[in-house]
């Protein structure tokens, strides 16, 4: 979708971007990551020709961007900046519709689209469409900044540290909202950031820059598991393996279709089941498969009767669509070495263990 070929930018005596070549696939979020002054923003701004390259070429959908008029090109690319840059003299609605209005789109249709976009970021159109930017909070303003870039439905989006100036709590919320929008709209995004956590959360692929050079371009998990050099390793942090936890869902790490017992089962059946699988405990489920609790070998040994008389409550369970970071956090909070995994309806799907997670994270190192 977007292809940079030997892209170079020289400002006077300094080479800001040095022979960068990379490709961003359609619908991908590519995060350009690096310390300040590493050339990531300059690289991004060359895509919509806010900065003209000194050498090399940029193709969008196979077409060289220098062959298109710069103004027309920019109108076909969404643009979001850290300072937001909403126009104070225009209402929220008119801000969102700046590009559609320039392109001469139907006014009513674009205002309707603006209302839809407002709803998508949880801002009630009736309450916000006619307000002015100064009447909104910083987080609300940046939501408008993002949907303004989407209003004319451009296939490509450039975002220059869009959430950098927002407080950490709101930033998480807006990041999540953006990911939801992105899942629905599937834009090709180039996203500049200096925050590794943000990159890991948002990116399909991460490009790490240092002094104008592209040092590594890979999926977040590969960057975290196999940093190309000591610079990347330092940049992503000593706790990089922990950061990988966020990239894996519980579903991918759990042991699926595990043994289970029901309250009506006899103690003998339960003990036999545990022995057969080599487990020291087993989850007890209700008639529709919902998790009710669990029984332990020690608690059952020498007892008689039904499992339902001897079960213990589970202090916590985890959803299968949650990420491992939250799962591990729950294990640590409750001093548990395993967790039962449930789906949205509370039905038992499987279990994860600390041992299993360690094993999974280590797999990538053993393969090499």
């Amino acid at each position: 979708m977007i292809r940079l070929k030997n892209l170079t930018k020289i400002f006077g005596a300094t080479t800001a971007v040095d022979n960068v070549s990379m490709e961003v696939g359609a619908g991908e979020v590519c995060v350009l990551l690096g310390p300040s002054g590493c050339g990531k923003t300059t690289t991004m701004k060359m895509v919509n020709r806010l900065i003209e390259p000194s050498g090399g070429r940029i193709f969008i959908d196979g077409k060289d961007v220098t062959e298109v008029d710069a103004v027309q090109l920019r109108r076909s690319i969404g643009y979001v900046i850290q300072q937001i840059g909403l126009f104070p003299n225009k209402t929220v609605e008119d801000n969102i519709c700046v590009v559609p209005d320039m392109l001469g789109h139907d006014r009513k249709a674009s205002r309707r689209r603006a209302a839809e976009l407002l709803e998508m970021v949880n801002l009630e159109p009736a309450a916000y469409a006619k307000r002015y930017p100064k009447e909104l909070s910083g987080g609300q303003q940046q939501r408008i900044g993002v949907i303004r870039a989407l209003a004319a439905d451009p296939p490509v989006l450039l975002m220059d540290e869009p959430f950098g100036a927002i407080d950490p709590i709101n930033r998480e919320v807006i990041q999540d909202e953006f990911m939801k929008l992105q899942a629905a709209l599937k834009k090709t995004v180039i996203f500049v950031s200096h925050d590794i956590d943000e990159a890991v959360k948002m990116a399909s692929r991460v490009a790490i820059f240092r002094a104008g050079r592209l040092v590594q371009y890979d999926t977040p998990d590969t960057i975290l598991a196999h940093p190309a050099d000591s610079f990347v390793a330092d940049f992503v942090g000593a706790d990089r393996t922990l950061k990988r936890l966020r990239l894996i869902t519980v579903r991918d790490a759990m042991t699926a279709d595990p043994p289970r017992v029901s309250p009506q089962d006899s103690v003998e059946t339960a003990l036999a089941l545990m022995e057969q699988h080599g487990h020291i405990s087993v989850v007890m489920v209700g008639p529709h498969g919902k998790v009710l609790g669990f029984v332990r070998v020690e608690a059952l040994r020498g007892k008689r009767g039904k499992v339902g008389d001897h079960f213990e409550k589970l202090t916590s369970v985890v959803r299968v669509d949650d990420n491992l970071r939250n799962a591990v956090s729950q294990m640590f909070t409750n001093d548990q070495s395993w967790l039962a995994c449930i789906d949205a309806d509370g039905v038992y799907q499987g279990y994860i263990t600390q041992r299993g997670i360690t094993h999974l994270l280590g797999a990538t190192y053993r393969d090499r």
Partner: protein
Amino acid sequence: MQGAQATHPMRALASLWRLTVLGLVFLLGIWASASGTLTAMMAYREDIHFLTLQHMELVAISGAIAILTGIPIGIVLARRSLGLFGPLVAQIINLGTTIPTLAILALAMTVLGLGAPPAIFGLAVLTLLPIVLNTVAGLRAVPPALVEAARGMGMTNRQILFQVELPNALFVIAAGIRTALAINVGTVPLAFLIGGGGLGELIFTGIDLMDTGLLLAGAIPTALLAVAVDFLVGQLQFWLVPRGVNPLR
């Protein structure tokens, strides 16, 4: 919202001030009527009528010329592409504000002769300065991020100027126009000295003849006109500058 609460004591003060002024004007009226000045002034009713219109004409023409030339000059001087040239010219204009009004009128007279044209020229030059300076200041104060966002979204330079820069500088520009016109109305009486007409005719004749009635017949309408113009431009500024960039709303 918090702004409105903060201005409450200010508003109370303003209404108190307005009442005081009204009371003073009322007392002045009683005095004027009792001392016979009012009757004396009324004798010049036709002159007042004619000269007020002439006065307003001078204000309107010179003010319009100043606004129509001052804003474009300000826009040109505020261009960052001018480099050091812009601030340099702005400094020269700043120096220009120190030249006494009478000197400007005298200079205009030596080139254009007597009558209304040199008066209008001199007044326009005088009125131009605050408008140019405020236009430059207003445009310079527009946050660079707005311009970057506008350019990044594909606005042309012209669209950036008219949709982003000027609307966001409008309040400051309007303040310049308000100051300029207030100065203008108060300076028009001097136009009489080079044969430009206006209420100055009554004022200066009144001074020469030591005739208080005649003097006030020129001075009071001039003062009222200045207040009216200031009020009018203030209202225009309040209502015409969009709510998003108007600190008063």
